[in-house]
């Protein structure tokens, strides 16, 4: 899947992402009202990744309902990412998106770029449970809750989402960062801080998947810096059942979806796995894996 906010703007471009090899697509995070987002610069490339403060630009849920219907007509499975400024708004938007015909919902509890305005939901276990439960009441669709790595104890937040009724946890959103221009002597992003993504965050995001997988029984969706089949396998072994890929499109183009899928297939063939589920979380059992069971890795 493409990560939320990456090329999730229109049905036509999401169709192209799907045709590039993604198993399903995810929309931009949709809110109750249209938002233009922050002024530019909204994204700057940094060492091994990107720092962005888009500011959740989106056309608003009323408008997006039609886009979802159009994407469905194209035969593309669509997960609608969404957010709100209050529990009620989260529930309302979720209700409208499910009515529109989305295949699943991803509750964005974790965008670091609007924290001052909307409050950093993902840092507060009680609120995560409350909002998840409120959304749960409005929809029967599979509900993913996407968490932030910028918290002290991600396990407790994941458990709160599970208690609230989430069907899966997406781990994780971007890590908070800053970039400074030394000549102009100021932060580059108009919003000053932004979210770091790409290979730079992979070890952190992978650790989040590892911890969440230990804490909850529901499936985990891995996200953060996945660029190659090898990265994907690492996430699966850490406990992820599905994966989202964003920033790798900047460095590898849209072909990256197929490249990653091919890499996974190659690893499975080399090691006698017939389904992803056989591999999920295997690395947690590291103490019992003898060298004899260690496998051959990848040929590409």
């Amino acid at each position: 899947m493409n990560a939320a906010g990456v090329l999730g703007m229109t049905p036509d471009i999401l169709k192209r992402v799907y045709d590039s090899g993604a198993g399903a697509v995810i929309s931009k995070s949709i809110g109750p009202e249209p938002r233009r987002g922050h002024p530019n610069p909204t994204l700057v490339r940094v060492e091994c990744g990107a720092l962005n403060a888009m500011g959740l630009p989106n056309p608003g849920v009323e408008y997006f309902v039609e886009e979802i219907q159009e994407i469905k007509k194209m035969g593309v499975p669509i997960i609608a990412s969404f957010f709100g400024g209050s529990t009620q708004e989260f529930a309302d938007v979720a209700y409208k998106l499910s009515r529109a015909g989305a295949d699943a919902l991803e509750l964005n509890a974790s965008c670091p770029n609007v924290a001052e305005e909307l409050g950093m939901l993902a840092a507060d276990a009680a609120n995560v449970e409350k909002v998840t439960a409120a959304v749960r009441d409005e929809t029967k669709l599979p509900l993913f809750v996407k968490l932030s790595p910028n918290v002290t104890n991600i396990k407790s937040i994941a458990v709160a989402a599970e208690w609230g009724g989430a069907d899966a946890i997406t781990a994780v959103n971007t890590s908070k960062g800053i970039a400074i221009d030394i000549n102009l002597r100021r932060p580059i992003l108009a919003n000053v801080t932004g979210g770091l993504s790409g290979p730079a965050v992979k070890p952190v995001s992978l650790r989040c998947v590892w911890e969440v997988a230990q804490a909850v029984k529901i499936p985990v969706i891995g996200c953060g810096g996945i660029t190659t089949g090898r990265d994907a396998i690492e996430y699966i072994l850490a406990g992820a059942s599905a994966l989202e890929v964003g920033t790798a499109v900047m460095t590898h183009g849209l072909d990256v979806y197929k490249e990653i899928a091919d890499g996974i297939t190659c690893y499975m063939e080399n090691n006698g796995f017939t389904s992803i589920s056989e591999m999920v979380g295997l690395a947690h059992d590291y103490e019992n894996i003898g060298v004899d069971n260690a496998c051959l890795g990848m040929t590409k």
Partner: protein
Amino acid sequence: MPGNDEIRTIIVLDARREAVDISTIYFKDELTQTAKPGQYLMVWVPGEDEVPMSISTINHNGLSSITVRNVGPTTEILDSLQPGTKLGIRGPYGNSYEIKGEKPLIVAGGSGAASLYPLVEAFIEKGIIPTFILGGRSSDQLLFEDELVDLLKEKLVISTDDGSMGYSGYASGYAALLMAENEYDHVYTCGPELMMAKVFYETEKHNLPIQASLERYIKCAVGLCGNCVVGPYRVCKDGPIFDTEMLDTIREELGVSRLDASGIKVRVNH
């Protein structure tokens, strides 16, 4: 980190007024010197905004330029810069014009001439002198007229909306006339989208290949955010130059709709 994504500081070395609301800003930047015709830069005016600008001069003795029309707060600042001012840039970004054909016709409307000037230079380097329609609202709005006359002589033809010079009417109307009367083998256009749409339809009548430079709201410029999409293409990365096949794919949006900063479709009105 690949160089072109890195933000560099440039110092404005010269700012030349082209018309009441258009000026060209000259600077030195190594990566811009290696740009191809049709590529653009993201130009950061600290504290204001970061906007896409076509590269209008590529490496004249180390100097490169952008040419800005004042249409809003950021371009107003860029249109009144003093030498010595510092700006941030990243790029060059996007695909570029492919140099094709022996008898090209180039159609420029307004500030569209900015991206087409390096194309003319590339043709001349190959020993080909293209026919160039320079269109503007009136005779005092004609971009790079002197430079283009030097390069193209009688192959430069002028059209003005108000008839104050050359053909009276839109550049697209003039282009239709010339395509009917002459044999061209490739058409290039940059300018207001409604003009480019008309030029595109005209090339279809004559079965001519075309390359057109499109504008959409650019944010990330690296193909991630999706704000610049038209049909299945990202203007920032797959564009800004659209060939015949791409234009055919986006026919329903060309000259009709574009996304605003929030992703809502709005009308293309120029």
